[in-house]
Structures are given as C-alpha cells and as structure tokens.
C-alpha cells in the first residue's frame, strides 16, 4: 500500500522546524519527503492546512490487561490511542498479575500484535510492586520491557530504591518514578489546600511529591541511573528538576494534560472524575508546570490514561479510585491549552509527544525521515470538537473534560504505514 | 390568584359598618355566655388577630372585664399543604393562657369553605380541652365544604366562587373597609 500525504506542513521536533512538504509512504516506510511529490499508484491524502507529525507516543498508559479487562484491555486501549493520534503507547505494569516477570511482558507483547497501535510494556521495579525485592530486570528487558516502574506503588524505602537504581543502571534501563511519600499522602483524597479544607477531604500536601522528587534525584545522582519522573504536579517539583538538570543529573520528567489544565477547583461538587493521583493542584502549580514545559525542564507530555468502570467512580468521593482517561483528549488539550496560548510552538509540543518520550525509553523513530517506519500523526490545528464521554473509544468514560470544546485534533493516525484512524473515524 | 389582578366590584362595609358589626358581636358574646367569666378570644392569623383584639376592647368597654386574647397560627394544620406550590411560612402560636376548661371564641375575618376553622379547631385541641368553642366571623360568604357554622356573624354576604372578599384593617392594610373583588376577564 502506498500513500501520498499532500499539502501538509511537516513538523520536525528535533530541528524545531515547520516545512511545507509532501510525504510518500510505501510498504510501511517513509520513502520520500519534498514538495510536489507525485506517485500515480499512491492513494492521496490531502493534508492541506494540517501538521504532519512523527507518530505520537504516550509513555504513561494503563491498559489494564491482564487482570482488569472490565476497565480496559489492550485492544480497547490501543483503539483509544489511535483515536487520540498516538501511534504507540508504553503501558504501566500495575496489572494483575503485576508485570514483574518476563511471562507477563511476553503476554502483553503477544496480545499487542493485533493491537491498533504499538505497545511497549514497562516492567515492575520490585516483585509485585511491593517495594522490597528487585525484579529480574534483565529478563524483563529481554522479554521487551522498555523501562521499569512501580507506578502507583511508590518505593517508600530509600535503600531499596537505591539498589533498584544501581541495578537498572547496570542494564541501561530507565527507572520511572511515581513520586509520592505515603506517610505524607496517607489517606489523602485531593490536593491539600483551600478546596480540601472547604470540602472536608483529607489533603495530599505538595511536599508528599516533592520530598520524593528530591530523594530520587539524589539517588539518581548517586547511582548514575537514568531517572524519569512521572506525572509531575507541583511548583516545587519543577524547581527541583530544573536545578537537577542544571547540575547535569540524568533526569527527565513528564506532565499530564490534566495537570497543566485543571486545578483542585475541579473537585468542587465532589467530582470523582477529577480524583486523580497526583491530585490536581493550585493555579500556581499549573503555571509552574507550564513554565517547566516552556523552558524545557519538563521533557514529556504523557496522559497517565487510567480507565475505571463507571460504577467504580459512581460512589462517594473517598471510595472512588484515582485516575482519568486521557488518550483521546490529550492532543486537543495540548493544542488548546499550550499551543494556542503560545506556551509551546508546534514543534516543541510535538517533541514532547513524540521525540522526547522515545529518547527517554530509548526507542527509534520520532522524525519523518526517509527510511523511517511510517508512524505518522496528522493534526488539524483548526478542527474543534466537544468532548462527549459516550463517544470515547476507551471502555471507560471517566474524563473530567466532558462538554469541553477542544481545538486542534488528530485527523489521521498511521501505524507502520497503515491508516488506523482517519478524519476522526477508526479504521480498525 | 393575586388580589392585584382583581378589580373592586362593591364595598360591603365601611369603617362605621365594621365597628357596628363588631360591637354587636361583642354584645352577643357577653349575652350568649352570660357574662365573660372564663371566656377567652383566639384570633386566627392574620386578620383574625386584630379583630379579636378589638372585640376584647369592646367587651372590656361594655363589661369592664378584660378577656385574654390568644393568637393561633394554623399553617401546620392546613389540609392543603401537599397541594400547594410552596410551603407557606409558619408563624408562632401565642396562647399564653391554659385553654382547658375555657369558653373559647375563635375569631376570623371571613368564613368561606370552613377548612380554616377546621384547622383552627384541631390546633386548639392540641393546646388543651376547652369547655366550649364558639366561632365569630366578620363576614360569612357561604360555600361551606365541611359542616361548620359561625355562632356570631358580622354580615352575611352571598357571593359567587369567582369573587374574593377582602377585609382591610388599619393595623395591616392601612384602611378600614370590606370589599368584593372580581377577576378582570
């Protein structure tokens, strides 16, 4: 199958350039880029007025399979990813059983063969993510794990985290840390501040995240391990990361669309779809993570896509699980909240969604160069849509963005030279 | 129906007529009860209250004896609470004397369906057990829906159900007269 994507603007996230150029795709690879390309056999895709981007990668997704298929599975989760313009996702190991051994990683890889987009499993740091014994990291790597994390279950013991990082560094694996000191966060339901006081919900102080960010930066410095800090949410964390980077420590960081968009005010009315960990913070924190995105302190935008069945969220606030679905609203939020207001240029935004996450995980791709695999996302910066939870491809509909109008949406997702989504319709 | 949407059809009583009617009722109360020993007046909120106070004054002028006056709010005893659009505001019942063994005269401005009096009787019974309860009204306009009659009537006024009787008292309305109102259509 040959495709000629005509009339669009190619986004190069590395050179940070926008170039009006056609793209010719054949046999799953990018053949050629340039103006006025012609190929009589190729199906022409009109991309006039649209951005032709290297395929986006969401490096923080919960696909829930195996174990929680009622929330999401690899098939439904990757369909959501395709709809959201992602050509690949990295999935977190907090499944049941936990992806702490090669068998679970292999199972995910095998299931992913028929998935709509690429799937890169992340292995656990400790057995059962219990924070005690190290996993067989070499085995995990051999089976296809692209990084290691105990996401959702922070490694509380500093000594264990120290050894985890020493061992992962030996194998050249990135450790992704979910920074949360459980003794500070204990029982917390939302950000600790004026809103938690008014609602009478136990708060999670910003310090619960920041002390762990500080700890893990020091441990990364001590061990030389590549550290990636997941879902950073506070002003203090951004400052610590900025300082660490200035000192040359191998640390990268991500922020979610909900953390650069929403504040703890979204919880008012006990909205369980705004219950997420780390919690939605103050406006000052939102401004700080946006500044971190702008000045490059924060490398990656990832969704922390965390599906939960409607009945799990349809309960009293404190009984609801943390998390929200993000795959299908991410690009819209990036364009509406970051690109349009001028916080990020289009190449910068695309870099945080494609090039940087690939660099963090050591994956190829991320640029539209001849010979590269044809993973391509086309984004229409002027297309608007109102978010309708019922229409989400994910099995779960737990989004706080219902009825939000988003402008700047993915209009084509091409994986390995196959179109999986076109003009907001799934083809798989 | 709001009184503002109605137009005045006729005046039934002027201030002098009202005074004459009340003085006559005061005489009748004294006569019927052979004096006013053990008699107490209970005004039904709102316009029954100033009427009861006036009757007490006339009785005192005639007999030289003061009769106690209580105030009854019947809101909590209404039989139409479930059908009204909004809960009517409840006001306080102020009956400072024991009603048990008393000869009570309930006082209200207009006797119509009888439902207000029914509610007032229930409210009184919750306060104690009077010896007798009598009913005094300034206007009886007919159309009873339950078997209740007044013992003392200022004026009988035949009306149609479309009409409204408006008793206006200085204490509440700043004027002293009774009028019939009618819809404008």
């Amino acid at each position, binding site marked *: 199958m040959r495709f000629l994507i005509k009339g669009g603007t190619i986004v190069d996230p590395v050179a940070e350039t926008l170039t009006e150029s056609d793209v010719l795709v054949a046999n799953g690879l990018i053949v050629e880029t340039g103006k006025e390309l012609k190929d009589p056999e190729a199906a022409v895709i009109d991309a006039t007025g649209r951005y032709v981007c290297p395929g986006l990668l969401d490096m923080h997704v919960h696909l829930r399979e195996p174990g929680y298929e009622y929330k999401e599975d690899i098939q439904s989760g990757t369909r959501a990813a395709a709809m959201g313009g992602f050509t690949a996702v990295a999935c977190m190991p907090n499944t049941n059983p936990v992806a702490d051994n090669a068998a679970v990683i292999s199972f995910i890889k095998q299931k992913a063969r028929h998935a709509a987009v690429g799937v890169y499993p992340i292995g656990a740091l400790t057995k059962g993510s219990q924070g005690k014994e190290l996993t067989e990291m070499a085995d995990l790597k051999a089976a296809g794990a692209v990084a290691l994390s105990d996401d959702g279950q922070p490694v509380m013991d500093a000594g264990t985290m120290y050894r985890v990082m020493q061992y992962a560094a030996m194998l050249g694996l990135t450790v992704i840390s979910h920074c949360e000191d459980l003794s500070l966060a204990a029982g917390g339901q939302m950000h600790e501040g004026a809103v938690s*006081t008014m609602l009478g919900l136990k708060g999670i102080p910003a310090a619960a995240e920041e002390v762990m960010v500080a700890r893990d930066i020091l441990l990364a410095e001590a061990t030389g391990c590549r550290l990636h800090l997941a879902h950073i949410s506070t002003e203090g964390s951004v400052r610590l990361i900025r300082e660490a980077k200035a000192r040359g420590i191998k640390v990268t960081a991500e922020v979610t669309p909900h953390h650069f968009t929403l504040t703890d005010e979204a919880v008012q009315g006990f909205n369980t779809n705004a219950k997420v960990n780390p919690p939605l913070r103050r406006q000052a924190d939102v401004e700080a993570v946006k500044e971190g995105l702008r000045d490059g302190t924060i490398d990656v935008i990832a969704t922390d896509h965390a599906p939960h069945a409607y009945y799990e969220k349809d309960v009293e606030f404190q009984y609801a699980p943390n998390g929200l679905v993000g795959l299908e609203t991410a690009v819209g939020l990036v364009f509406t909240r970051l690109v349009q207001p001028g916080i990020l240029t289009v190449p910068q935004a695309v870099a945080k969604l494609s090039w940087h996450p690939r660099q963090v995980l050591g994956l190829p791709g991320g640029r539209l160069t001849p010979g590269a695999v044809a993973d391509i996302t086309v984004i229409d910066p002027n297309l608007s849509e109102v978010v309708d939870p019922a229409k989400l491809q994910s099995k779960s509909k737990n989004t706080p963005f219902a009825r939000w109008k988003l402008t700047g949406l993915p209009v084509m997702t091409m994986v390995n030279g196959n179109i999986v989504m076109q003009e907001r319709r799934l083809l798989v | 129906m709001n009184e503002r949407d109605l137009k005045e059809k006729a005046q039934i009583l002027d201030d002098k007529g009202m005074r004459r009617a009340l003085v006559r009722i005061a005489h009748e109360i004294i006569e019927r009860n052979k004096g006013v020993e053990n008699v107490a007046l209970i005004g039904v909120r709102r316009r029954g209250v100033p009427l009861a106070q006036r009757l007490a004054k006339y009785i005192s002028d005639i007999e030289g004896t003061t009769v106690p006056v209580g105030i009854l709010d019947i809101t909590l*005893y209404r039989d139409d609470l479930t059908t009204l659009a909004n809960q009517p505001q409840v006001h306080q019942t102020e009956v400072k004397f024991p009603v048990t063994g008393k000869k009570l005269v309930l006082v209200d401005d207009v006797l119509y369906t009888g439902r207000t009096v029914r509610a007032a009787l229930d409210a009184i019974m*919750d306060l104690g057990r009077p010896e007798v309860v009598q009913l005094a009204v300034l206007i009886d306009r007919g159309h009873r829906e339950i078997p209740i009659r007044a013992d003392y009537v200022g004026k009988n006024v035949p009306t149609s159900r479309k009409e409204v009787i408006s008793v206006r008292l200085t204490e509440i309305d700043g004027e002293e007269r009774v009028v019939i109102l009618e819809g404008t259509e």
Partner: protein
Amino acid sequence: MFWQRKDLLGLRQLTPEEINLVLDTAVPMKEIIGRKIKKTPTLRGRSVVTLFYENSTRTRSSFELAAKFLSADTVGLSASGSSVAKGESLRDTGLTLTAMGVDVVVMRHPASGAAEYLARCIPAAVINAGDGTHEHPTQALLDMFTIREKKGSLAGLKVAIVGDILHSRVARSNIWGLTKMGAEVRVVGPATLLPPDIEQMGARVYTEVEAALEGVDVVNVLRIQLERQQQGLFPSLREYSRLFGINQKRLELTAPDALIMHPGPMNRGVEIDPQVAYGNRSVINEQVTNGVAVRMALLYLLTGGEHNAISH
C-alpha cells in the same frame, strides 16, 4: 420568600435569606416542643428515614423526635444490620428507599460529600446529618438559632470556635453560616488540627486561645477525640487541656455575657471545665432543644409541594 431547594446539604450553598427562613420557621416549632401535646398533623402520611452510617444517638433521636412531633412516619436504618453491611452501594440503598416511597432521607455518613452524592441519585429530599469532615448543617443552624435567640441577631457578633477544626464538620458549617450572617468567626486549636487555608472560608485563625477569646460573644467548644492523640496529632489530653481547655479563668477574656456552646458529647475536664459547662453562661442544654426545633423547621420546609424540585 419560599424554600426552593430539594435538599439541605450544607450551609455553603445557602443564602442569608434561606438561613433566616429556617431560623424563623424554627421559632414556632420551638413553641410546639413546649406544649404538653407535642404533635401537629403537618407531615401526616410523610415518611422520613434516618440512614446512619455512623453512630450518633443524639442527632438521630433529635431528627426522629422532630419528625414524630410533626406526625411523619419514621424508620431508622443503621449501617450494621442492613444491606449496607453487605456492601450495597449508596446509590442502590437510596434507590431502594425511594422505591419504598420515602419522602425525606436524613443521612449521617463518614465520607465527605456523601449527602451531595445521594441527593443526586434520588428524587427524595436529602438532609445532611453530617458527612465526613465536610458539613453538619443542622448543627450549625441550631447553634445559630441559639445565638440569635440569646443575642437578638447574628450580625456583628464575634464567635470563637475552639478545638479540632481539621476534623470538624460542625466548625465548617458554622463558619459558612455565621460569616454569611455577618458574624466574625475565629478558629483556634493546635497547629496540627487547623486545616490549611481556612482563612479562605472567611475565618480568622489563631493558635493562642487567649488571643482568640478576647472580647468574643460566643465560645463554641469542640470535642477533642483521644483518637487524634493516637494518630500523633497532639501529644496528650493533658497538654491539650492546658493549652486550649476552656475554663473560668479564660472566660474572663470574653465579653461579660458571652455564651458557652458545645455540640456534644462533652469530655468534661478536657476541652471544657465542668464549672463552665454547667455555668450560667452555658447554653448547651438549650442547644439540644433548639436542635429539635430547627430539624422540625427543615422537615417542614423540605416536604413542601410539588415545586420544591430545584436541587442544590
């Protein structure tokens, strides 16, 4: 002015006019409680369920008496011994009660926001009888009724709330209600038991009890739970009592006719000296009577006609 809300979930949402309507309606209700025959037929045929997921003898009996004085039928459901204990969701419990024809659900629940959640699930009126550490609106209304009765008005008064503000739904509802009515609210307690940014609710924050009591018209003393010591939130009841206990000496700092209130049950000798609790400025027992009156008023207002359907 008519009551328009389907539910009473908290004082945060209420307007001063609505608060006044409740307090004004409680005045005639209190007269009924003083009668020999404490009963009116007002809510005949209406049903009120008290759904209590936390034990509370006093609040529950106050609501049940209020309902019975107005002739409503009442049923009490406790978390233990019901389907709740079998893991039924709150929505399903609510729908079951609705299917049985319940008009009002009075709920006490350990989770903040539970009343608001239930109110969204069911058409019946929901009265929040305390949800987690969020709100306890009927307690605050009875506190305000008591203050208004004694002081004539709430505007311009200074009210100190003393104790574990962090875990107190009573404090939160009082802050919302009193500040709306023009009173100044001061909160004082150990730094570990003061929630962050409570100034944004309109309260003034103190950590020194003497400063907080200076010239106040009302002292509302909260219960301190031993459990909080075990959680490491304060060192000992002894030290708590020494720093924050309300005794005769400290009362000299208040306005001379200041009222002493306590939502109960009291830890005598800990947060409040018995001399103060039973002294001539204490209105603690009147609070209990007024609680029934205020709850009668709310039951009356919330069972209004067909059009009482504007939720929240």
